[in-house]
């Protein structure tokens, strides 16, 4: 069977979106009260990620890459972040188990750690540690962006002071067309970047591009990705406020 059109001349993508539309985002916070201090679940299209945050608490020295945690432990003026991620074997199209030290997953954890070390007001919690655990339940493109967004929400839920949401989104370049928020089929077919911004500002927390792309193509991709980030920030913020309202209503203040 031949592959369907990635981007039709009529301006529709493989799943019926236009170039600048993100997939449906559904998110919730405080989903796993029993097992964590802060938790969230986010679905971006068919990509689904759960995040649990424990802390801040006593440093245990564990965490991502072992060494990373230990080195940081010496700098005891700042909070220590540890990130670990589990990608479920059933999350992709064919059942495949990823080992715990899968390089790509390790790299993703490290990326997330670096982002949030800057986004969290670490100096307020010296000599303490925050453990972040991610569970990727289903993948349909944009795993990293979904993880970053999930962490953001879970940290908010845990009450960790942050400068702003960190929101992430992907953008790709198909021929001459920028496409926002790629799904799996699109990711396989074109160069794309993942960008994370600090809230609705133009401050870039992450820019990751793993494919070669012409320098002249970069700017439109970045612009599109940034608008996607800002859109996600609104969705996340709305969810947090909704949750806050319902909490307030329950406590009867």
């Amino acid at each position, binding site marked *: *069977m*031949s592959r*369907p059109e990635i981007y*039709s*001349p*009529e*301006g*529709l993508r*493989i*799943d*019926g*979106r*236009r*170039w*600048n*539309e993100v*997939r*449906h985002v559904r998110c919730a916070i405080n989903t796993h009260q029993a097992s964590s201090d802060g938790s969230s679940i986010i679905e971006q*299209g*068919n990509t689904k990620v759960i995040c649990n945050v424990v802390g801040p608490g006593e440093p245990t020295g564990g965490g991502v890459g072992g060494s990373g945690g230990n080195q940081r432990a010496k700098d005891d003026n700042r909070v220590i972040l540890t990130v670990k991620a589990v990608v479920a074997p*059933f999350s992709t*199209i*064919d*059942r495949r188990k990823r080992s715990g030290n899968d390089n790509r997953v390790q790299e993703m954890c490290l990326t997330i750690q670096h982002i949030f070390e800057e986004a969290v007001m670490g100096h307020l919690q010296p000599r303490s540690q925050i453990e972040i655990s991610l569970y990727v339940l*289903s993948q*349909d493109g944009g795993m990293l962006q979904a993880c970053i967004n999930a962490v953001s929400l879970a940290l908010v839920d845990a009450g960790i002071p942050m400068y702003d949401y960190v929101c992430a989104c992907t953008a790709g370049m198909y021929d*001459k*067309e*920028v496409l926002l928020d790629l*799904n799996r*089929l699109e990711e396989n077919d074109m160069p794309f970047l993942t960008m994370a911004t600090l809230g609705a500002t133009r401050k870039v927390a992450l820019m990751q591009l793993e494919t*070669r*792309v*012409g*320098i*002249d*193509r970069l700017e*439109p991709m970045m612009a*599109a990705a940034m608008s996607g980030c800002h859109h996600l920030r609104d969705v996340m913020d709305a969810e947090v406020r909704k949750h806050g309202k319902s909490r307030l209503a329950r406590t009867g203040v």
Partner: protein
Amino acid sequence: MATGIKRHHPDGSSAFSLSMSQKVYVRSRKGKATKIVQEHYLRTDIPCSSQLCPLCILNPPKDSSGAVRPAILSRTPPSVKPWGAHYLIPDTNIFVKAMDLMEHKSAFYDVIVLQTVLDELRNISLPLYNRLRALSLSQEKRFYVFHNEFRQETFVERLPGESVNDKNDRAIRTACAWYRVHLDETIGKSSAIPEILLVSNDNDCLRKAKELGVACTNLESYVKALPDTDALLDMIVSETSDVTAPQKLVYQEYYSTSRIQGGIKAGIFHQGVLSISQYNYLEGSVSVPSFERPLLVLGRESLNRAMHGDVVVVEVLPESEWKQPSTKIVEEETITKDDNPEAEDDDDTLVTEKEHAALQEKLKAKNTSAEFRIQPTAKVVGVIRRNWGFYVGHIDASSISSDAAGTRRQTTVFLIPMDKRISKIKIRTRRATGLVGKRILAAVDSWDASSRYPLGHFIRVLGDIESKEAETEALLLEYNVQYQPFTQSVLDCLPAEGHDWKVPTDTSDPRWTGREDLRELLVCSIDPPGCQDIDDALHARVLPNGNYEVGVHIADVSHFVKPDTAMDLEASSRGTTVYLVDKRIDMLPVLLGTNLCSLMPYVERFAFSAIWEMTPDATIVSTRFTKSVIRSKEAFSYEQAQLRIDDKSHVDSLTEGMRILLKISKLLRQKRMDAGALNLASPEVKVRVESEQMDPVDVEIKKAHETNSLVEEFMLLANISVAAKIYDAFPQSAMLRRHAPPPKENFEVLADQLRVCKNMTLNSETSKKLADSLDSCVDSSDPFLNTLIRIMATRCMLAAEYFCSGTMAESDFRHYGLASEIYTHWTSPIRRYADIVAHRQLASAIAYEPLHESLRDKPKLERVCQNINQRHRNAQFAGRASVEYYIGQALKNRELDVEGYVMKVFSNGFVVFIPQFGIEGPIHLRDMKVEYTFDEANYALEFNAGTEKEVRLQLFDKVTVHVETVLEESTGKRKVALRLQSPQIE
């Protein structure tokens, strides 16, 4: 398969309110479950694209550059009784059956192509899909692709137990019904609402559509309602008649796909491209990597419905059945003349007596022949990809049954293609008698195992046979040359100033940035007389240190043709300018080719210059490239330049420069020859056309001057220098040209022929040895013999090709014929697209401008290479065919005796090459009532003419032939007919 719907709350801002996600489980080959989950967003902002609809025009969707696609479907669609004005919605089957109709200019406007249909078509045939996409993009015929599966109202979910086909049919009907309602609602009562007309050949679907209240019809009754019915009806792909009784198979069925794949893997079957012999339509050959010699496929039965150019799978026959290539000239029309197209092949066996006899002689010959002539023989067991395209030919008048004349009954007739390698094609038409004597374009649709000939359909009439327009168009179609005038969007890419465009006088103009001012240099151009597209110019001068400075200046086409513009795409798809005898099919619009880019004398032009410093013995000291502005001092023809150089009275610096150029070019040539460059020959003749009435009057052989090779040497030098530079800058994506060394086997026959007939040796181990041995093949009494051998050697070579440097190992870059390690084309950007690419890459390599994305993209470049290789080949073929046609015309009313050489010997005839016209033609012995024997080992025919003397005719022998032209009945081409004059054998 399972589907789940998730409904979301509509959020005001986005146009899609509901998403549907589909889960499909597919078993993979290993039995593992593979889960494919795809989202599917439904939206309400997909326009109906009718110019009548005020709603959809109000809020059109924008693309990333903010552009809006205008409504396509016209306000006043064509009106056909009894439906009135209407938009058409054909189903998938209609596009499969009648794509040629859709492309026809006289009908089928305002067509809505549903996404369902488009997707289905894509699964059935990618070429058809591409044609349909091209139709909808051109907008000329107003085809609109409506994404019904993404529109909320027209989305159809597959019901439990429903087949995919049924679902698709239902989706089509739903879309029709929606269009109907939508137009009713939005247009209102004020104006006439176009009907929505569903066209389908599926009776069940039509019935259900009627129940829904959708106007519908089948294709035939729709076409019958159109004016010009007959011509259109002929273009519908003929239905293979629904047979109840199992038909008798004429051919062996192809093996199943799995058996073929298994066989190829196991090495039992081999895959390759079939090429049919020019001289024998029943003999094909397939080159496969596992055999040194091409595999022979002999006879209709073994060819098994495969046609020239098809990618086939063959099975090698046991060694006892191996044969040698035919030593006979076999032409289809002489053998199958009396076949009846209407007969359903029920009585006759596949191989007729006559065909059998034609092949019989091979078995006999086996014992006598030299061992090396036996070739592995194979039969076709499967076809991977058909090479079916359009074929130009004419109707075989004798195939029209007498009772069909005058009636409008549909009859089956034979179309005889101009290309002799293509089998006759069965065509159903209602206008058989009207089509006799016309050049006709047709397509092949199918070739069942139960049919002796392929089945095709008529597309259009090009004109009368032998009329110049029809023959030229036939030629262009046959070689797939794009000859349509440039579209407006291409012309829009030209500079607005048009012919008044000038190099800006102000050197601070941005267009001067990075350009060197070389206007003072004494530059001149040397071209064939009457050349209008001058793409190269030269200069040379002595430097103070005694060295020479030599410059090659090439038209700066890439300044005008920017990547990814409409003009660039058009040039890329045309690939090359095609030169016919009386006509030039340009790659770029004429304004650029013959004016703005052309380095005309006395005017300033943008150029791209390569400048070398050389020592007096032509060793390169330094090379540099720069964009420049030049003013050519003079445009010479080869002859003028030669005269000027030879005339000692000219001592001006321009002439001196030319003398330097000539001197260096000789040194360069010598160096090249020493390295083993080949000096090959191809028959080159020029047809002189009297401009007034454009009737060819004479044929002459092109003359070569020293200045020809002067220009050639510097172009080679420039190309080699540029190739090295761009490969250095872009090791992965440089556009280069290579010429693979020919396999040794290719020369075996020629070497043996030379040894036997002329006692000469041909050594083809290296290009150097080949060049030397070619030089030694000289017969002092016959100077032309050497040229003839060179012509034959050229035919043993492989063709040079463009490639992208990242796709080959560096050792394969070599250009065999030129004996250069690396080579590209850079010097003719006006007429070759490869040169434009090389220009861009070079401009980027010298940091003049950034390299465009598409020139870094390896797969994209590979596609470009593939296309221009193909176009280049076709352009050569077309040029040759055009010369052939004109030679035929020039000799039309003349008869004369000329000298020729025997070029090939068959057991029932031989081929004679005539240097004077650069043509070759067969002489059949059946036309001469003589007894003869065929001495195969010595490539000779012995005639028993009379009793006392015996005449022997051997390969390479000089003969005198009588030339006249006849209108060949089989192909409708005017062909040169030869008759042997001396030696006398009759």
